[in-house]
C-alpha cells in the first residue's frame, strides 16, 4: 500500500526545529501572545473594522476579505504596537492601509483599457454598477470624494476617532489630519450638492416624460 504510517518521515520538521535555542522559544511565546491579543481585538472591534472597510470599498465580500487581511496584519505587526491602550487606533491604521492598498490596486486594474473607453469620458461599467448598489445621494457623494478624505470623514463621524487617534489611524500628523478633515467636509458638501442637483434633474426629466 502506498500509505505511510505517520512518523517522522512524514514530517517536514524534525524535532531539531524545536531546539533552535532561546530565539525559537521566544518566537513561540510572542506568537502566542500575538494570537491571543488579536483574538481579543477581533472580538471587540471586528464589526466596526468591517463596517469601515465596507464603506470604503462598498463591497461586502471584499470588505470581509480586507477585514481578514487587517487582522492577519495586526497579528504579524503585533510587535509594533507600543501601547495596548492605542490598539484601536492602531488597528484602524492597519485597516486604513489595507483599504487604500485595495483601492490603489483597483485603480490600476481599472486602467486596463478592456472597455475601449477613455478614462474620464464616461462612467465605466464598474462605476455604473457601483452606483446602482449605492443608496442615496450621501453614499454616492462619499464615493466621489478622494479616498483619504472619505476615510477621514468615516473615521471621525462614524467611528468616533478624533484628534491624535484620527491622526494615528490616517498615518499623518495631527495638523494634517485636521486639514484633511476640513477639506473632506468641503468635498462632501460639493459632491452632495452635485448629486442632489443630478437627482433633481433626473426627477424633472422623469416627470416631464410622464406628462408626455
Amino acid at each position, binding site marked *: *500500500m*502506498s*500509505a*505511510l*504510517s*505517520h512518523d517522522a518521515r*512524514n*514530517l*517536514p*520538521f*524534525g*524535532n531539531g*526545529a*524545536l531546539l*533552535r535555542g532561546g530565539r*525559537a522559544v521566544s*518566537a*513561540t*511565546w510572542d*506568537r*502566542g501572545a*500575538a*494570537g*491571543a491579543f*488579536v*483574538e*481579543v481585538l*477581533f*472580538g*471587540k472591534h*471586528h*464589526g*466596526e473594522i*468591517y*463596517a469601515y472597510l*465596507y*464603506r470604503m470599498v462598498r463591497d*461586502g465580500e471584499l*470588505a*470581509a476579505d480586507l*477585514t*481578514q487581511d487587517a*487582522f*492577519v496584519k495586526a*497579528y504579524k505587526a503585533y510587535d509594533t504596537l507600543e501601547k495596548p491602550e492605542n490598539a484601536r487606533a492602531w488597528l484602524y491604521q492597519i485597516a486604513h492601509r489595507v483599504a487604500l492598498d485595495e483601492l490603489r490596486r483597483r485603480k490600476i486594474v481599472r486602467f486596463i483599457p478592456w472597455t475601449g473607453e477613455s478614462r474620464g469620458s464616461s462612467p465605466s461599467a464598474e462605476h455604473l454598477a457601483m452606483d446602482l448598489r449605492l443608496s442615496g445621494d*450621501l453614499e454616492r457623494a462619499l464615493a466621489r470624494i478622494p479616498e483619504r478624505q472619505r476615510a477621514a*470623514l468615516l473615521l*471621525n*463621524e*462614524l467611528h468616533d476617532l*478624533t484628534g491624535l487617534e484620527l491622526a494615528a489611524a490616517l498615518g499623518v500628523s495631527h495638523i494634517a489630519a*485636521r486639514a484633511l*478633515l*476640513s*477639506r473632506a*467636509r*468641503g468635498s*462632501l*458638501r460639493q459632491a*452632495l450638492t452635485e448629486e442632489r442637483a443630478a437627482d433633481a434633474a433626473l426627477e424633472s426629466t422623469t416627470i416631464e416624460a410622464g406628462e408626455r
Partner: protein
Amino acid sequence: MTMFRRRRPDDWASEHERARVLSALDLVERLPSSDAAWLSDHLLECATCRELAAAYEADRLLLRSLRDTAPEPPRDLWARTAAAIEQEAWGAVRAWRLPRIGHVPLGAASGLLVVAVVVGVTLFGKTPPETAVVPTAPPATPGPDATPGSTPLAIPPNQVAWVQKNDLGTYDLFVVGFDAVCSVDAGAECAPIDSSAGKSVELSRAPGSVVLSPTAPQIVVVDVAASTTGGSVFIVPVPAPQPSFDPSATPSPTPIATPDPTPPPDPTPTPQPTPPPSNEPSASPTGSPDATPDVTPAPTPIPIAEGAVAIISDVIVVGDPAYSPDGTWFAFSARPADGSAGPDIYVWQSSDEMARPVTFDGRSVFTGWIDDLVLGSRAVPIGVIIDDLDPTSSPATRPPATAGPPSPGTDPGSTSSPDPGASPAIPEVFDGVAFVLDPATGASVDLVGSSWRPVVDPSGRLVVFWEGALLVDGTGVGWGLGEGRLLLDAWIAPERPQPPIDPDASPSPDTGSPAPTSSAPTPSAPASTEPSSSLDPSMSPPPVVLRTVLADGPVVDFDARWDPTGTRLAVWIADPADPKIGSLRLFVVDPDTGVLSPSEDRLDGAPALRGFSLERGRLAWITPPGQDGEGSRLHVVAWSLDRFGTIESRPGSELIVLQ
C-alpha cells in the same frame, strides 16, 4: 515640482475661505477662542458663510445617520481569519508542541476560579466567541488558597455544554462560558468549573446523545433507549437567548421565552423495515425523496422534557447525529428497534413533523455534512471470510456465495442482513462506499473507493475515513470494523448530486441506480477527478497529501471530528476491551499539506468516553468514571494559537458533552 510654504494664521485668500475652513474645523474640535470669536462675528455678517456652516452641520448629521445601517460582517469571518492566522503561524514557526495534559495536576484544592458562568445566547445561536465580547461575569481572581505562582491563562470567550445526572435522578443541561483556563505551562491547579448558574434544561430521563442547534433555541435529544433497545429522538426547546453574554445589554426581567415547537405528531410514526438490501453495490439511495415509510400507529413516547416533540420513535440510532452547518437540517441514521432491517439515513427540518428517510437500503449511515449535503457511507458485500486455510493467518476473503442479482425474495440473512439466529454462517466481508446526498432532492452521488464513515474538514480539503473491511456485528444488521486502518487523506469533492430530469426514468431505490462507483475502486479516490466547483466554487485545489495512518487495526470503533478552522483534528479510538471508553487525540493539521504537526499526539491519548465536542479553540470530553475513585468529569482543553490550558467540571455521573 510643487513648492509648499507654511501659511500663517492670518494668511487667507479671503475672509470667506477662512470662515469655510474654520466652520469645518469647528466640527472636529474646539476652536481657539480668537478663531471662534472671529467666526461668530463673520457668520453674523455673511449669509453665504452662515448657510455653509449650517450645511456642514447638516452633512454631519446625515453622515452620522449611517450608524443606523451598519453592515453586518459575515458569521464565518472569525473562522476565516483564524485559519489565515493559523497559516501565518505555520509559516513563521512550525515547531511548537502542546504540553501533555496528563502532566497537569488538576484538583479541587486550588482557588483559581477561571470560569465565568454565562447562559444562553452564544450557546443556542452558536455565536462565535468573537461576537460575544466579554462575559458579564468576569473571571475571578485567584483565591487565597491558590497555588503560589499559578496563573490563569486568558483566552477569548468560549463555552461548553453538557448534561449531567442530578440528585433527583433527572438530568440537567448546563451551559457554561469561560474566558480563562489553567495554564499547563505553569502547572497550575485550578478550581473546577462552576456550573451553579449554568443549568438550562431538565431532562426526565437519560439521554443517549444531545446535539445543539446552531441557529434555533433547541436541542435534539436521542433517548438513551435509542442506543440500546429502541427509543425516540426528541426536539427539545431550550431557553431563548439571553443577553448575559453581551455586557452592554441589560438583563431582562421577563421570563425566558419558550419557542413554539413543532406540533406534536400523533401518532408517532414508526419506521417500517426496509426491503431486503441487495447484494449489489448499492445503488444511489435516493429513491423518491418524498417517499416516507409506512406509518404504523405506535404509542406516543413520553416526552423527555417539557415541550419535547418526538420526530421518530422505536428506533436504534446508529452513529452520531448532527445539524447541517446552517442549522437548516438535522440528520441521523437509525434502524428499526425490532432488528428487522439495517440503518438508513433520516433528515428533519423545522417544517417537518417527523424525520423522513432519504436512504432505503438498510445499510447506510450518516457521517456528517458538507455544507448542505449529507455525507454518508453504505456497506456493500465484497466476499466471505475463508479462515480454514491457515488459522494463524489473516482471514482471506472470497466472493460471497450468494452474491448475485438481488431479488425481492432473497433471504436477507444470507446476504447483507444476516439473521443472527440462523445456522453458523460464513462471515461476510463488506466494504464501505461513501456518498453525498442532497436532502432536499434525495439525489446522491457515490464516491469511488473504499471509505467508511468519512469525515471531511470544513474547508473541504481533507478527509478522515476508515479504509478496510467491515464485518457484520452482533446485531446482524449493523457493521463493525474489520481489518483496515483509519486514514487522513486529501478530499476532492464530487459534483453536486443532481436529481433525475425525468422522474419516471429514475431508478427504483430497491433495484439500484447507475451508481458511478468504479468496478476497480481506488482507495480514497473520489468519484470526480475534478475539484468540485459545484459544492464550493471558491474552493482551492486539494492539497497534495501523504496519506497518513491515524490508527491501524484492530480498531473496534472510532470518532473523528474537525474544528471549524480545519486546522485541528480530534480522533477518538475505542478500547477493544471496553468500547465505551477510548483514547482521545488532538492533532494540529497543516491545511496546505495535510501533514500533522510535529507533535502527532497532542493529548497523549487521553482517556475519554465516546462522544466529544470540538469547537474553535477548545475540545471537551467526558472522562471515564472511576478515575481517582470519582465519577466522570467534563474535561476541556482550550487553546489560543500556541497557548494551551485546561479546566474540568466537578465529578458527576452520566455526563454527556453536547455536540
